[in-house]
């Protein structure tokens, strides 16, 4: 069994051409608009003595290949399971196993990649939304004339917050879906990937953060509606006051002019 810590770290960067000739490459479109490059590598027939070394070499090459898209980020995950290996990064993944197991592994990785990509996209949008919270939180308490021009901007952020909540609501059941019973390789692989990428915890954090955004911008929306409504009434009152003032002025001028003449 090979784990991440056992991957030779000094291996030179490799290109896809150095993989065994039987390796297939697939490009899987993801829900976030990106693409996952998937290398499907059947284990070559080797004698038992060379098996571990061959697997270690393939895993090392696949890890380097997957690392090329995570420059400066987390190293790819290596998930060993029942003699198979999955090397996982956000944009590249490789499955290594005997030919009969590869279709199930491929399906499991594709399924997981979709959900993970969706969650990652939501997280990215939440982070960019949270940047505005400091400035906007005051408007959830009190709205004034000076902030009126920001109405559309706040409405846009409210829509974005609701959209994030809606996506999380849709995503949560898919992530919490139990593995099939009796256990299958694909099901187990999905569980392992979910655990190793901490998808469940990330989902919980994302839900909390999206809740915060929704609360802030719901508050902003309420304050805006209250302000606009009271402003409309105040405007009408002021116009009535102006008309009364004008009437008084007209009367006064008429009286003064009569008195003067």
């Amino acid at each position, binding site marked *: 069994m090979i784990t991440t810590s056992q991957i030779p770290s000094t291996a030179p960067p490799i290109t896809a051409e150095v993989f065994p000739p039987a390796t297939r490459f697939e490009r899987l479109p993801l829900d976030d608009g990106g693409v996952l490059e998937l290398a499907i590598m059947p284990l070559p027939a080797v004698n038992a003595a060379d098996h571990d070394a061959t697997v270690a070499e393939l895993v090392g090459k696949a890890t380097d290949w997957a690392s090329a898209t995570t420059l400066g980020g987390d190293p790819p995950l290596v998930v060993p399971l029942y003699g198979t290996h999955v090397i996982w990064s956000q944009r590249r993944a490789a499955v290594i196993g005997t030919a009969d197991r590869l279709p199930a592994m491929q399906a499991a990785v594709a399924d997981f990649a979709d959900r993970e990509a969706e969650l990652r996209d939501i997280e990215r949008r939440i982070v960019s939304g949270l940047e505005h919270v400091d400035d906007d939180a005051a408007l959830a308490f009190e709205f004034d004339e000076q902030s009126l021009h920001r109405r559309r901007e706040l409405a846009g952020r409210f829509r974005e917050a609701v959209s994030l909540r809606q996506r999380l609501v849709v995503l949560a059941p898919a992530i919490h879906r139990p593995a099939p019973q009796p256990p299958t390789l694909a099901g187990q692989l999905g569980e392992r990937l979910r655990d190793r990428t901490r998808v469940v915890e990330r989902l919980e954090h994302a839900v909390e953060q999206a809740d915060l955004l929704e609360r802030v911008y719901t508050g902003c929306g309420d304050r805006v509606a209250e302000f606009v409504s009271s*402003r*409309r009434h105040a*405007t009408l009152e002021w116009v009535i006051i102006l*008309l009364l003032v004008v009437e008084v*002025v*007209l009367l006064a*001028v008429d009286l003064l002019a009569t008195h003067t003449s």
Partner: protein
Amino acid sequence: MTGRRVAARLPSIDLLRAAAIVLMTLVHFVENLAGSIDIHDGPFIGANRYWWMPTGFAAPLFTFLSGVSYRLWADAAAARGRDSEEVSKITVRRGLFLILFGFAFNVLVWMPEDVFNWDVLTLIGTAMLALDIARRTAPAVGLVACGLLVGLAPILRAVADYRAFWTAGFYDYDFTLGDVLLGYLATGYFPVFPWLALPLAGFLAAPLIYGHDGGETNRGSKASWRESPLVIGSLLVAVTGIVMAGRPFVPARLITHDRLWAMFPPTTAYVLGTIGGGILLAALLHGTLDGRPSGRGPLLRIAGAMSRHSLTLYVLHHVAHVWPLWIAGLVTTGDPDGLWQVATPVSTAVVWSAAFLFFAAWLSERLDRPGTPSAESLLRWLCDP
């Protein structure tokens, strides 16, 4: 842009205000020193020479810009987190200061009998008080107020018998409560109706011209064409033309001036045209000057200094030509008014006004030095916390 900004002077506003000072100096020197010389069909150059008409923009521009500047200052103060009550206090103090300063100015420059002639300083002081209310109300209220101020002015003049207060082109009132109040409202030099519409229009137009961020430019905003200052300014100018064309249909009692475009009294066309012209000028200059990355050249530097000391220059330009006029009249004819409008030929008056403007440019930069007394430093000392 989040609306947080540092209040910075806009070169376009400084240039416009400096232009108003130049026009004001020119018109007062020429009309007060030489207004009756070589004029065969009337006492005023302004009423008899169409090429002299641009000088009529000085006071409207000045008052319009007072509203613009107040809006930018108030918005910047709010953006800095300054308390609204504090802004109100400063505004009211400044308004009252300008009204009292205006009375003192009238007594010292125009003689005590003209203390209630309702000059531009008392108008701007009143405008400060009105703008503090406008600041707290929706723009629609200000817009309605503007319409009422402009629309009711001819009616008030008719009711008050405007012509009875004006003899030979000058405002002449009795020291009675009725005359004084009528002068303030409708018949004086700068009565509330319709002159208050100009600072109010400046206040309302400022965010459209300079953006809600107050001068950081409003480029890229999604403002509709209805909020474009160029469209609004052009519409007002077009309405001015319509008002002029509709003159034959106006009841004779409401017509207080023979001309379509006149300053005393301000005809409806004049008020609308100067507001529209002010908006167009401010928007065009803002678009061309304020976004320039290069610093201020000598012209803009001097314009900035003159703009910063416009109140001082307003007082000084009167003192510089009216006091000598009174003294020379008293000495040569025994009557302080003896040389009024006949003191010099027009060319000499123009030279004197140019000389004063050079002096004003020189003086303005020196007034910027810390601790130098000026009308502005007095205003700040008295009114600012």
